[in-house]
């Protein structure tokens, strides 16, 4: 894969991190664990992208957070808010539509 292929892929994936986070965080999770889960689910996101992204989504009211101090290492848990859930539904619908459209276009060419 060439350098420019890589750039195109990044361009295509931009925005999917937000949708993946909103969907994933319907069960509360903390930063590093979410990073691992996303990577395991095939959506690798860099920590320096994900951590600021979580804060941004929280400040936009799409996520809510809570500190969990039960364990020795206090962690900030994020959860998708009702507004975030509504947005996730919209984004997911669009994602599916896009998939259908791209699929149809790719078939046409054959």
């Amino acid at each position, binding site marked *: 894969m060439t350098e420019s292929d890589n750039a195109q892929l990044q361009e295509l994936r931009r925005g999917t991190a937000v949708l993946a986070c909103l969907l994933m965080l319907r069960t509360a999770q903390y930063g*590093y664990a979410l990073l691992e889960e996303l990577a395991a689910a095939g959506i690798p996101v*860099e920590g320096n*992208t994900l*951590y600021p992204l979580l804060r941004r989504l929280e400040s936009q009211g799409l996520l809510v957070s809570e500190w969990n101090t039960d364990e020795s290492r*206090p962690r900030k848990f994020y959860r998708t808010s009702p507004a975030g859930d509504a947005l996730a539904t919209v984004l997911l619908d669009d994602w599916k539509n896009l998939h259908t459209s791209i699929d149809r276009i790719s078939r046409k060419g054959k």
Partner: protein
Amino acid sequence: MMTTLTDRYVWAVQRALPEAKRADIDRELRASIADAVDARTENGEPESAAERAVLLDLGEPTRLAAGYSNRPLTLIGPDLYVDYVRLLRTLLVIVLPIVVVVLAIIGIFAGAGFGQTVGTVIGTTLTVGVHMCFWTTLLFVVLERTGNRRPLNAFDPDHLPALPVSKAVKNTDLVATVVYVILSIGVLFWQQNPGIFVTADGSAIPVLNPDLWSFWFPFLIAVALAQLIHAVYVYRRGRWTYALAGVHALIQLASGIPIIVLLMSGRLLNPAFFAEFGADALMAPGGAGNLVAAVAIAVIVVGASIDRFVKAARTPRT
């Protein structure tokens, strides 16, 4: 307690954050780093190498802090860049030359010498130019950071510039004519008063024959102004036509022929000037320098006239 790389990293991130966000981000970032380090040491990596690798992955702390505080990592972002360049170009291409020419003319009338005037032109061009660049940039950097990132001028299709009919008339042509006309008229007045050369007793002595002020100098000034108006008209028209080239040639001849005739008949230069400074064999009336100057003027006049007809010929008909 020894400070760790993590301590130093988190501190570097915090330093670039607004006060209100610091404590919370500090706590969360430390936990995230510790989690990532743990994951690596569980795979058998030594702790110090793991910490290093985790911090390398997180990257430049200032960049991370900018992500946290949603601060732009550009001096002037894409929203304002177009306005920035447009304003800067207007200032440097239009306002700066006007300021410099006005200051130079004021200096000339205030009695500045030639060297002093050249110094003023170079000095003000640099000083005013640097000021224009600096303050404009600062203004846009502040706008970029105070949240107003909407473009200053909303794009309106009606304001699109008209298509140039040809590239025949460049704005550099217009600027060159304007500068040439202003300088010519300025020098004409300047050599008369306050004067470029002074006699031993300190009074100014004009190089050009003061008798010509009765008719020929006002006439030549009028012709120069006509040339200016013509140049502006051609620029606005955007192209050379044969008629415009013809008018241009007439204007050139209207100034070139009188100057050549006056020069060759020994009436252009001031006899008193040569009486004061001694007759120069070349430039004194009848000297060979006069002929050289006359030929040079003729070449320029004819050359410039032909050039405009060539431009008119190259302009596609519409």
